[in-house]
């Protein structure tokens, strides 16, 4: 008798229960996904919305069409999934960042949920996935010396921020020409809120009142993204090309503004005030290429963002936007093949990523570059897997009164695959 089953094993149950507890715990004690002072501008630092596998490949994902996990980097990338399997993925991220400015040093730690995705092949030519991922993150905590205009005295401003934009999406992909061409679209909603709090510490400088200036921004809108992938084989060599596009979109925004001091609940209050021309998502387009031969994979991405067409309406901020690009890629290899012991089936990745920043602070670039490593460890009999990616990132610079960041970022993901759509066969 040839026998397969759709029943979850006890081990899988335990893991899912653990993940559920983590999720609940995270909601209760939510932290920020970044500690970067540069996240105080705009809607914060844009996150890499990707699977942890891509995080180990220099954040390349446009031309990847995996069979064993859902790639959200390209809406067209889900047509290569197994038609009998339901896919579930949850990711967590953590980071330790060291900040340097002038002669100051600080070390900060944070972490958060990095995404939840599930999906399947609905038909032979139609793939579908839904999920959630942070789109941007605001999280900073630093102090700043400022001069009092008209005097030589200085006082300390404490800048803190938290929150970010979230993105929920529904990806659909349709394949043509015997799966050689795949077109995809992502329909999603983007929403979020973030706080910017400026605390002027006058108690030390002037023996005066501390002032708390809190702004809470709320933004939302629909978000559409389009993608395609095309591939062909030459012998055992597979070549895949991909592209993605999304257009500029203004976020509907409002804010609450509360100014208070040590002795008064509020000196100024402005509630749910809408404002125009504040936050946008830029037009972006990118292309990727992947070469695969047996267990070896090479992939590279290039993405261009038209930030230059977005004006920073916060005229008093020292930030201007400009077009920027991101380029990253990596290689993946594995010693074994299906049926080998698990340690032979472990996949290893290494990658590199760089990007000139889309914002200039005081006309200076805040570039970032990173070296990435990754690994996929198979789990159990049902092709579940545990993915871990490490990134060493450098952002910004110490000169010109700016801040240099060096981060150790870790992403962990759990891929759970269940053969919900497999049928029992009896010979």
């Amino acid at each position, binding site marked *: 008798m040839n026998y397969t089953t759709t029943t979850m094993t006890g*081990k899988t149950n335990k893991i899912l229960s653990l993940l559920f507890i*983590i999720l609940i*715990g995270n909601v209760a*004690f939510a*932290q920020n996904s970044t500690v970067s*002072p540069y996240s*105080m501008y705009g809607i914060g630092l844009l996150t890499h919305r990707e699977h942890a596998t891509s995080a180990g490949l220099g954040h390349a994902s446009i031309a990847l069409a995996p069979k064993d996990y859902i790639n959200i980097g390209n809406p067209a990338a889900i047509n290569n999934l197994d038609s009998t399997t339901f896919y579930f993925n949850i990711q*967590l991220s*953590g980071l*330790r960042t060291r900040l340097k*400015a*002038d002669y*100051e040093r*600080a070390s*900060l*730690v944070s*972490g958060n949920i990095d995404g939840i995705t599930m999906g399947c092949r609905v038909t032979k030519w139609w793939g579908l996935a839904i999920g959630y991922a942070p789109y941007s993150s605001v999280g900073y*905590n*630093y*102090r*700043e*010396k400022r001069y*009092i*205009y*008209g005097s030589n005295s200085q006082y300390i401003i404490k800048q803190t921020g938290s929150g970010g934009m979230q993105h929920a999406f529904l990806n659909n992909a349709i394949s043509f020409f015997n799966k050689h061409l795949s077109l995809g679209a992502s329909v999603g909603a983007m929403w979020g809120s973030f706080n910017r709090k*400026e605390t*002027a510490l*006058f108690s030390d400088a*002037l*023996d*005066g*009142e501390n*002032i708390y*200036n809190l702004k809470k921004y709320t933004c939302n809108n629909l978000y559409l993204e389009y993608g395609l992938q095309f591939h062909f084989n030459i012998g055992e060599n597979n070549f895949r090309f991909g592209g993605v596009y999304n257009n500029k979109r203004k976020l509907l925004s409002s*804010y609450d*503004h509360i*100014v208070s001091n*040590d*002795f008064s609940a509020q*000196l*100024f209050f*402005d509630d749910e*005030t*809408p*404002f*125009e021309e504040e936050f946008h998502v830029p037009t972006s387009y990118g292309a990727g290429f992947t070469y695969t031969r047996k267990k070896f994979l090479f992939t590279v991405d290039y993405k261009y963002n038209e930030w230059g067409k977005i004006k920073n*309406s916060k005229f*008093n*901020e*020292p930030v201007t936007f400009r077009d920027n690009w991101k380029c990253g890629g990596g290689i993946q290899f594995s010693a074994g093949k299906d049926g080998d012991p698990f340690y032979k089936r472990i996949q290893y990745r290494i990658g590199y990523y760089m990007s000139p920043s889309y914002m200039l*602070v005081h006309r200076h670039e805040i570039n970032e570059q990173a070296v990435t490593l990754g690994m996929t*460890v198979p*789990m159990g009999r049902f092709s579940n897997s*545990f993915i*871990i990616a490490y990134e060493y990132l450098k952002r910004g610079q110490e000169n010109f*009164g*700016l*801040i240099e960041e060096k981060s150790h970022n*870790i992403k*962990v993901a759990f891929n759970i695959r269940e053969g919900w759509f497999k049928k029992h066969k009896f010979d």
Partner: protein
Amino acid sequence: MNIRLRAITVALSIAISIAFISCSNDSILVDTIFANSGTYTEYVDQTPIELATFRLDSVQTSGRGTVWIGHHKKKVIGDVYSQSYVRLEVEGKATAVPHNQTYEPTPYLFDSYDWAQKEKYDSVTIVLYHTGAYQGDTTKAMTINVKRLAQPLKFAENEKTFYNVRTFRDSTSIGSFRFVPRPHSRPRLRYRLDDSFGRELVSFIKANKANKTDVRDQNFEHFLGGIKLESGDDAKSLLAFANDSVRIMLHSHITDVDKIKITRKLVVSDFTKQFQFNSIWTENEDSPYDCINHRSEQVNEKDGGQHSVMFEGLGYYTRINFPTIRTIADHSYFSHIVRANLVLYPERNGYDKHNFPQYFYVASVNKGNVSPTIDQGHAVLKTVTTSHGTPSIAKLHNNLTDPNDVYYTIDITNYLNTVIASGNIDVNEGLVLSWSGVINSADYNFMIFNGRTKNKYYSYLELYYYNYDRENK
């Protein structure tokens, strides 16, 4: 659990630790403008203020513990005179001491009204003790006249205290003496009064020998309603005496087997202490402040020689006006005052004592120089407080390298913010300075402040505004 799951569990634990348990609040200090968020703090030191001098029509000088007698010529103010009124009563027991046992306790104590048959009158004297405080030239001799009040020294109806403007004119002299003050080396003064008064006092004692105590006290009150102590025309200084040290001593003796000296005392008791008060006035037609007759009248600094005066004994107070309070309020629409300091420069030679006082208080007053809180018609003013609820106190700052650079700062942040927040802006409201928490104390303090119109070492208001930004709507 197989080795794979163990490895995964360990990795998961590490990831959870990083992501959820570890958390650092360490923050970095940036030395330059990084955020430039549109908020800023500015310092404004040119906010105009105006000093003025007003005078309370009467100042409480009773119950202050000090008898001020004499005359002194003060800078700006002119001639200042003070005379003092004291009420006495008969001490219960007379002291009888054998003349050869001066320091031994005596068994011969008897009621002060028990005038013995063989007792002979000797003399009557007055005793005063210097507190050490004085104004003017104490090397010059001065005369003190002691006068007897015919009418009892009592509170007027519906009046708690005597004021500095009150006088009792129907008085007769019972003695005078001339002396060189030397307040530090010779604190005790004892001088003989007229014998006619002494003999009159003996007659009163004899007449009341058989009366009950309350009748005696009532009769004494009409016999001697009080005494007035005033200086003669030769006085060049003002002297302070402890009010409970004033006493009149009646000396007599009995000649029997031995000669026994007897002393009866008219003293300031705890009860009569409250009736003592000083009458202080000034005479100087050239003084700009001489024309102030009512508390609602004031002399601005431009008419007062770019000065204001603070002299509690005479009821002169320095008032601070804010002629641009509306501008300050308008400026605060998008900002908040995080610190407001009044900087007041006293004139270096405008204070009599060696060192400037370390602190004084500030209170709020309206156009008529009346406080928002009036205590039963008396000039009890509302002291300005800090944001913490404690009284705003002027603090003295010394510049060791420049003796003229001595000034006071007063935190009036809470006062200005409260006025602005109320929306009830009145340019006629102002502040008044006081040496003590109670505005109408009448210690003999005197100080001159430099006005805003002086070229150097002028008083001013410094403001620190926190300007907060607003989004573009």
